[in-house]
């Protein structure tokens, strides 16, 4: 109810001029959609999401799968390592962003990254405000990687434990060497369902990115013009100075359509690929 009612309401609102009001009178048809699509900031926010997903989805996928494979084969201290990698899940994006912004990637010398790089004679970098090269991506991607890798590691571990051991025995009989061959021909294909789910969740979560962008990049003067994902953009449009709820709703509807297409497309693609097997 709290998903479908607001969604329908926002479709309705998106056809109206609604500044600072939730009970609009002035019907504007598709104007809100036209101005959203013509707005560079909106299309840029989609591009930001694209770049972010391009970094974070493969990085989290690889790290969490790697951690799961390594932890799974441990004979002792398995619970210890699993706990350490899972622990960041207890940390909020706000707290993590604070540590990253004020302690690790601080632009001045007391930041950990600059201190460590300083030992090797490197110059100081203003991580969050340098746009050429865009160092802020490093900060944004590592926060999320740290926070979510442990969770997906647990999903992969669950998947690994469901692989029947007979498969590995058969592979050993057939002379497959442990390591890459076994991983490619047995482990990875057996993790197929888990991998699809993880990839899907990672894309959806990347699309919802807000907390770390907002907390890392905005300050008392507002949000810088770069690296603004769709949710931050919508937040500014609908609840910022303009309180333009009509355009905000139009943006929300457009995003709903895009995510629906992406999700269905992804499901189709994986579904079709499966039938070929």
């Amino acid at each position: 109810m709290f998903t479908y009612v607001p969604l329908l309401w926002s479709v309705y609102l998106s056809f109206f001029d609604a500044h600072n009001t939730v009970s609009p009178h002035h019907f504007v048809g598709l104007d809100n959609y036209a101005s959203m699509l013509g707005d560079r900031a909106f299309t840029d926010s989609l591009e930001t999401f694209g770049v972010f997903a391009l970094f974070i989805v493969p990085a989290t996928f690889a790290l969490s799968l790697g951690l799961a494979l390594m932890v799974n084969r441990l004979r002792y201290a398995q619970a210890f390592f699993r706990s350490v990698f899972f622990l960041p899940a207890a940390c909020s994006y706000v707290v993590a962003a604070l540590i990253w912004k004020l302690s690790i990637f601080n632009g001045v010398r007391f930041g950990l990254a600059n201190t460590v790089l300083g030992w090797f004679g490197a110059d100081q970098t203003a991580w969050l405000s340098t746009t050429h090269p865009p160092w802020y991506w490093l900060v944004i991607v590592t926060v999320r990687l740290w926070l979510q890798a442990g969770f997906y590691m647990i999903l992969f571990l669950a998947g690994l434990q469901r692989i029947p051991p007979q498969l590995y025995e058969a592979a050993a009989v057939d002379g497959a060497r442990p390591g890459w061959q076994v991983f490619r021909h047995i482990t990875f294909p057996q993790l197929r369902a888990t991998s699809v789910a993880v990839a899907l969740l990672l894309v959806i979560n990347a699309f919802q990115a807000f907390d770390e962008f907002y907390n890392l990049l905005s300050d008392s003067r507002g949000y810088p013009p770069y690296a603004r994902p769709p949710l931050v953009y919508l937040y500014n449009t609908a609840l910022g100075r303009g309180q333009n709820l009509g355009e905000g709703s139009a943006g929300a509807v457009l995003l709903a359509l895009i995510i629906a297409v992406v999700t269905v497309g992804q499901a189709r693609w994986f579904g079709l690929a499966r039938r070929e097997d």
Partner: protein
Amino acid sequence: MDKALLAFGRAVRLVLLVVLALLFLIPFYLLVRNGLSTEADITSPDWTFFPSHLQWSNVTELFDDPAVPMARSLLNSAMIAVATTVGTVVLASLAGYGLARIPYRWSDQVFYAILGTLMVPAAVTFVPSFVLVSSLGWISTLRGLIIPTIFSAFACFIFRQYFLGFPAELEDAAKVDGLGYWRTYWRIVVPNSRPVFAAVSVIVFIGAWNAFLWPLVIGQDQSAWTVQVALSTFTTAQVVNIHELFVAAAVSMLPLLLVFLLLQRHIVAGIERSGIED
């Protein structure tokens, strides 16, 4: 030869794991280190691994600072997280049970409609939800912060999957004894499903405690700030000292760390059993 190679591989893997584990722990260390340091120790250009001395008075200073509504925010967060957890678990378990056990004409369609909301990201619903809540006059109220968040399709899905696998014999016995769905649910199903209730509660509690966007949008008055919103406001407005900020962040994490350490087994089991992969 092969054996030596395997042993070498194992050693490399262990070293890699230890290095990664240290990297994963560094942010926690920095949080505690900075929270217990003097401001000079944090901002010193000659950064050292250990602070010159541990300044425990940061904690009392934080709660005494009139500019920082720390106690109030913590209380808000606690009330919201507890209410959200209880509300979600009650609603989602009942819905999940109904979907799993009570056959009626549209039950499959209802299930797919609920599942569909999982695919609709917060990016899409937060503007319209805000509109709905503000037209109800619930801005900056606990109602506005709690009620819209207690319908969790995810929790409902987990409960449905769990109840589908619940042994039907137990319920049949209850039915023979003349119990209806309602009483069967409370007397037979709930007491025998503690693990799934524990797992969902913990997951929902963590999510509610760490939630940021919704409390930021709805909790506009300082009196309705959650601890996450308070922290975020301090970082962007720079009204407090940096050591106070770090100790506030550390304090905000304590309840969750306790939950994590005490219930880690349930959390992991709950995620593993959630059936996301199927």
